[in-house]
């Protein structure tokens, strides 16, 4: 393979939801489906991802069960608590739970993510989600479902409140001043005084500023509404694209929209969802997908980059998309976690490292370190 002299550095995440991205993954040999909700199963997957110095793991969540039209698998744990459970016994790797804004309180969301950041030493991010689903609304019973545009607008307001609450404590607010017996300097604690369309929140947070200052915001773009939210607020944008040009176009438009919103486009990390079935050769990868398809009874419809083939081909695709600027990296969605994650880490990652496009050790202790994002200045800090 011929690589450019200094290839762009890739960012790689992996989705640890369910038994894998394929709905029939739980039915295949070795899936440990009986232990689907066992924290030690997840802890092991994180260890594997960490062996590959991946940037982050993502955990899906929703207030409803998996829709029965998409899989027979049933059941979810609260993703934020799973991320917290995985934190003390991992290092380097980012932990990214999905937390919805539609039926939750921004005050609670803010301190939950801040706390995952504290217990992990700066490795939390928040994947923002929202819902226009009638079922979700019925679970909470506070009113009818919002429209998609309405839910995204509320999510944007929630992001503004959550991130303001993270800044509501300046880093050096805790002074422990023996002379005056003051524990905090109240001038460095701030009321956020949010009075918006969907909620009013006074602040400050009860939780001090998280180690990263602002844990990264992750937004999945799937519509015009979420595009705007991502361009204005996301540090990491997850996109779906089936070919390189589509990804390139979307990435460039996102960067332009971010710039138009007054942001530095270089601060955006655009990651493409990559569904993978990896085998020692194309035929065996294909055979494994055929088995999954047969179990499920319908073709696997992913809506994004889908690789059924060898580790070498996948590495080439990643490098190729990255080289032309179609992606800053990928969120890998292994068809079967118990098979494809090991292959990703032990076969794909070494090829990317050989190409000098991927780290062989963590850049620092925090997720921002892995993403190459600076720690933000506090919006309330007095300018000297």
């Amino acid at each position, binding site marked *: 393979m011929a690589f450019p002299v200094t290839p762009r550095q890739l960012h790689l995440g992996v989705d640890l939801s369910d038994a894998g991205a394929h709905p029939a993954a739980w039915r295949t040999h070795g899936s440990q489906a009986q232990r*689907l909700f066992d924290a030690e199963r997840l802890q092991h997957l994180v260890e594997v991802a960490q062996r590959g110095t991946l940037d982050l793991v993502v955990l899906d969540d929703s207030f409803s069960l998996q829709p029965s039209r998409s899989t027979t698998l049933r059941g979810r744990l609260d993703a934020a608590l799973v991320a917290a459970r995985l934190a003390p016994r991992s290092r380097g790797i980012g932990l990214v739970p999905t937390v919805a804004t539609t039926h939750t*309180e921004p005050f609670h969301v803010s301190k939950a993510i801040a706390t995952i950041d504290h217990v992990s030493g700066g490795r939390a991010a928040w994947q923002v989600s929202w819902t226009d689903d009638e079922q979700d609304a019925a*679970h*909470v*019973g506070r009113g009818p479902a919002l429209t998609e545009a309405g839910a995204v607008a509320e999510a944007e307001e929630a992001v503004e409140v959550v991130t303001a609450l993270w800044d509501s404590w300046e880093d050096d607010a805790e002074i422990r001043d023996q002379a005056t017996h003051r524990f905090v300097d109240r001038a460095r604690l701030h009321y956020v005084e949010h009075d918006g369309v969907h909620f009013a*929140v006074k602040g400050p947070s*009860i939780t001090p500023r998280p180690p990263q200052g602002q844990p990264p915001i992750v937004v999945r773009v799937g519509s015009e509404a979420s595009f705007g939210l991502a361009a204005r607020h996301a540090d990491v944008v997850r996109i779906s694209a089936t070919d390189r040009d589509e990804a390139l176009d979307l990435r460039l438009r996102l960067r332009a929209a971010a710039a138009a919103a007054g942001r530095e486009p270089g601060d955006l990390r655009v990651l493409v969802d990559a569904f993978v079935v990896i085998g020692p050769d194309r035929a065996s990868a294909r055979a494994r997908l055929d088995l999954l398809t047969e179990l499920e009874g319908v073709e696997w419809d992913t809506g994004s980059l889908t690789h059924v083939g060898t580790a070498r081909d996948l590495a080439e695709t990643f490098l190729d998309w990255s080289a032309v600027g179609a992606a800053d990296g990928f969120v890998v969605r292994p068809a079967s976690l118990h098979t494809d994650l090991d292959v990703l880490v032990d076969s794909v990652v070494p090829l990317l490292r050989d190409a000098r496009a991927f780290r062989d050790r963590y850049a620092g202790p925090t997720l921002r370190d892995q993403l190459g994002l600076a720690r933000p200045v506090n919006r309330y800090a007095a300018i000297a």
Partner: protein
Amino acid sequence: MGARKQIHLGVHFPGVNNTTVWTDPRSGSQIDFTSFEHLARRAEEAKLDFFFLAEGLRLREHKGQIHDLDVVGRPDTLPVLAALAAVTDRLGLAGTINTTFNEPWELARQFATLDILSGGRAAWNLVTSSDAFTGENFRRGGFLPHDERYERAAELVAVARKLWDSWDDDAVIAHAGSGQFVRPGSVHEVRHEGKHFQVRGEFTTPRGPQGHPVLFQAGDSSDGRDFAAATADVVFSAHSTFEAGQAFFTDVKGRLAAHGRRPEELLILPATTVVLGDSAQDAAERSREIRLQQVPGPTAIAFLEQVWGRDLTDHDPEGALPRIEPDVENLDITRGRVRHVKDPRSIAAAWRELADANGWSIRQLVIEVTSRGGFVGTATQVADAIDRHVQEDASDGFILVPHLTPGGLDDVLDQVVPLLQERGSFRTDYAGTTLRDHLGLTRPAPRATRSTSDRALVG
């Protein structure tokens, strides 16, 4: 060994009030996970029942500004407990969560998740404290008069229990051959139409190892006690002295029969502090030093201001009590903590009298009137006293509150617990794996074996 009543002990992570001394050189972070891990690991090594976290959803204010004299700031309750589940195996994990500013669907799945992630060690301390002040951080704002708070709490628990019971215990079969992940018919739709909640749907999360997390309740009014008698597995009380403890114990256990429950189905665990010394005199001396650390001059003045309702910073804490009368119009000078000042003028008069009679300064007076007892003595004396409280029904055990973060209970765990073990009043090892096992509480029956009254509520 006979049938000694078994003591139950929990550790309380230091709170954000002046019990916690931060001026001591040994005082560590109240935020770093290492502090939580230290206390939890030490408690588990000593075979304690559980680790406990309090909660407060708005920073306290005094005279219209954030109160800055005590420890301020703490992480979110449930993520800390989930993280502790990764570094402990047996210790119960109890979290305080307000029933006013949360919705049942979300809370039920959070506690089910914690129970699953910890292998059956979750507990929920239900608190009802709520006021418009705290409400300013939430969508709903301030609402709910006192009696409706317990009504909402009771309905919230009822809904949560329906959700926890809506998955049968053995629902997950993961049968690859047939493609059945859950056994058909084992996940039941929940329908609830009530005054405070309308909830409908299939719950997301399997039933936890304990069926339901252990429910604690901390509230002292008659409403609170009735709620506990009807609903809770454990009462967290503030009545730690022997006489008050016995009175509270008798009162609350006496309320159980009306709800068809037996006395051993509700445990009463007061909060208490312990100060140890080589001799009784040494312990008393240490206790006095700790009280002085807990009540520095500015804290004494701020405490007095809560009763006087006015600024007293021009008074010398080492001097006499104010001669000026309390401002009775200004009773919420301190906000965000549970305190009931009834008649400030008579309190002020009584305190002046006390101070005059004993020659106390402001600071000495505050130290005296805010002392809540606790155990002070040699390890043997303290073990005797704790055992006596439990054997003679002043409590079923205690929640130990340290004054230092994170090592403030190390000496108690090292010196007192072994003595309780020697006399056969405290376990020398865990007999089971879940918090219900430790507390001797039965696991709630699954839905299938319940009466039909539930059924009607489920579609």
